[in-house]
């Protein structure tokens, strides 16, 4: 009898200890909060569907993106083919199946958003962290360096982003890579400023002072103390700028600087651009890609917003 209760007590003790010794890191807690958020759920589902389409799109598309239905669309007579059983979203101005082109274009669009954001994120974070490290722990010389770097970034920020992208695209010539680089370059100053600002805030905090007083080397303070605490706004910004990257790519395509081989490699931004010429006679041609862009952008924005809320230590319950 008594041995049994002892065993139960022991078990209770053990499980209790296991629970308390695991320790929940801030990241893990944020993930938990993220899972509980409806906004994040909706955003994640949209992105998941988008990702799935990007992967399987070319195989499930009913027709090849370049395949034409001849003799049905007459642009000069304003005769278009709308949605029908054969072509769910109708035909475009060259008699191609819009539904198939959108499925195939999902991959291109995603690639563009991810790659250009990655370019902006990596280069921007590199510049921002260098500048932030100089400003917080580099002494007087470091502050001078930071000041110079930041003025250059400010110049980039002062230029209208589309103008900056157009000039980059003009220099590099017309291609998909150009669009990615151009949009990435536009994002650089945003990420650099954001990371540097966060690092400055963290650099003045008590625990950095404490790390300094412990005798930890400056390089290590930047890596283990300042950086991990400065990253969350940058991560959030990355999810948000994925959405803007897609829209900016559409703008670049609109100006004729985007994908040159749009027949075989359709992309939503380009489709939207081409559709606007026939907006009076075939408005639906523009609606499909526009809706797709809006929904995808919404998905990324929702997830980004939810991430920001989850990572904000002030909202921790």
């Amino acid at each position, binding site marked *: 009898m008594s041995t049994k209760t002892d065993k139960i007590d022991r078990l209770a003790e053990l499980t209790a*200890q296991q629970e*308390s*010794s*695991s*320790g*929940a*890191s*801030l*990241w893990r807690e944020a993930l938990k909060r993220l899972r509980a958020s409806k906004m994040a759920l909706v955003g994640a589902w949209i992105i998941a569907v988008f990702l799935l389409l990007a992967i399987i799109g070319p195989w499930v598309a009913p027709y090849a993106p370049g395949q034409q239905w001849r003799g049905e669309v007459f642009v000069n007579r304003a005769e278009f083919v709308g949605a029908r059983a054969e072509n769910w979203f109708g035909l475009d101005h060259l008699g191609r199946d819009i539904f198939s082109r959108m499925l195939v274009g999902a991959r291109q669009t995603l690639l563009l958003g991810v790659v250009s954001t990655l370019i902006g994120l990596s280069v921007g974070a590199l510049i921002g962290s260098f500048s932030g490290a100089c400003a917080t722990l580099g002494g007087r010389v470091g502050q001078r360096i930071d000041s110079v770097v930041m003025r250059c970034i400010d110049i980039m920020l002062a230029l209208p982003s589309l103008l900056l992208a157009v000039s980059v695209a003009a220099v590099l010539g017309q291609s998909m890579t150009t669009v990615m680089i151009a949009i990435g370059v536009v994002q650089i100053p945003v990420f650099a400023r954001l990371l540097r600002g966060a690092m400055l805030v963290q650099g003045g*905090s*008590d*625990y950095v*002072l*404490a*790390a*300094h*007083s*412990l*005798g*930890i*080397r400056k390089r*290590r303070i930047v890596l*283990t*103390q300042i950086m*991990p*605490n400065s990253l969350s706004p940058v991560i959030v910004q990355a999810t948000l700028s994925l959405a803007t990257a897609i829209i900016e790519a559409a703008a670049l395509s609109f100006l004729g600087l985007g994908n040159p081989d749009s027949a075989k490699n359709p992309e939503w931004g380009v489709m939207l651009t081409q559709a606007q010429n026939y907006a009076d006679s075939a408005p639906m041609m523009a609606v499909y890609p526009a809706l797709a862009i809006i929904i995808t952008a919404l998905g990324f924005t929702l997830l980004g917003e939810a991430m920001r809320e989850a990572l904000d*230590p002030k909202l*921790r319950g």
Partner: protein
Amino acid sequence: MSLLELDDVKVHFPVKKGLIFDRTVGHVYAVDGVSLSVEEGQTYGLVGESGCGKTTLGRSVLRLVDITDGSVNFDGTDLAKLPAEEMRTFRRRLQMVFQDPLGSLNPRQNIESILSEGMAAHGIGGTREERREKIRDILAKVGLPANALARYPHEFSGGQRQRIGIARALVLEPDVIICDEPVSALDVSIQAQVINLLEELQESLGLTYLVIAHDLAVVRHISDVIGVMYLGSLVEEAPSDALYAEPRHPYTKALMSAVPVPDPEVEDRRERILLTGDLPSPANPPAGCRFHTRCPWAQDTLCATERPALKDVGGGHKVACHFAAEIAAGTVERTAASVVPATREEMADRVVETPAE
């Protein structure tokens, strides 16, 4: 020779202005010529109101702020002139406990990582296992459970966080610990725990403390010697009991009279000195005695023109006041009416009388 000796330490922060090229338009005299010495195994308490430079002084000892002038002698080495890398290795022997227990712990590091980082920086305890063993040992000393290792700062209570802060200082086996307002962010009941812990650790490990606080009761409880700071310099320094028995500087008198006495009879009848005005700006300190603008005993001669030095008046009791002896003897009259001798009863009577008129 004392373990830690500060000689005429000055910390002046330049005030800069300018769009492109910074011009120095003035200085904030945060610490302006402080000399003190801390004996091995003892506790030196530093008190003063907010903004008097006590925290800056504490940080200057560890060179967390740049020392403008003066020397900090620690065990025969002048820290103020040490190259950066040597200073870094010296920090193992001088540690600090911070005011804000949560703010001074990295929220993204678990306790093991927080405590082992200092050891890694100074090459203490070879393997991970050895370090962990040592951390467990220290955690037991400060009264934290061993399963705290994998947890994060936000999972602990205020008192526990401060223990973690103390443990972080202790793992490096320092000689001196500078406690910057170690308990002011804690509840009163927890304050006592942490203060007692500090005292126990001092006894068992032979630590030397420099305790910075604004709470006179805390400082009195823990200190052997107390220094009173006002606007960047020491105005009085004395063994703890002597200072509380007989404060000599007018500022110390005012500070002491602000502490309530836990006896209503005495509390109602005792005389309280109320200081008028705010602390003058350390960017533009008053000439002469720094305290003369608020001093109830300020005299026409000397006070406004000459800065008094910290002089020994017997028994290790040092005062920086031209008229300390006269004030003690009662031969100098108060010049300002900022003293409130009125007892509460009298004041209550007056309040009752007024509507009757």
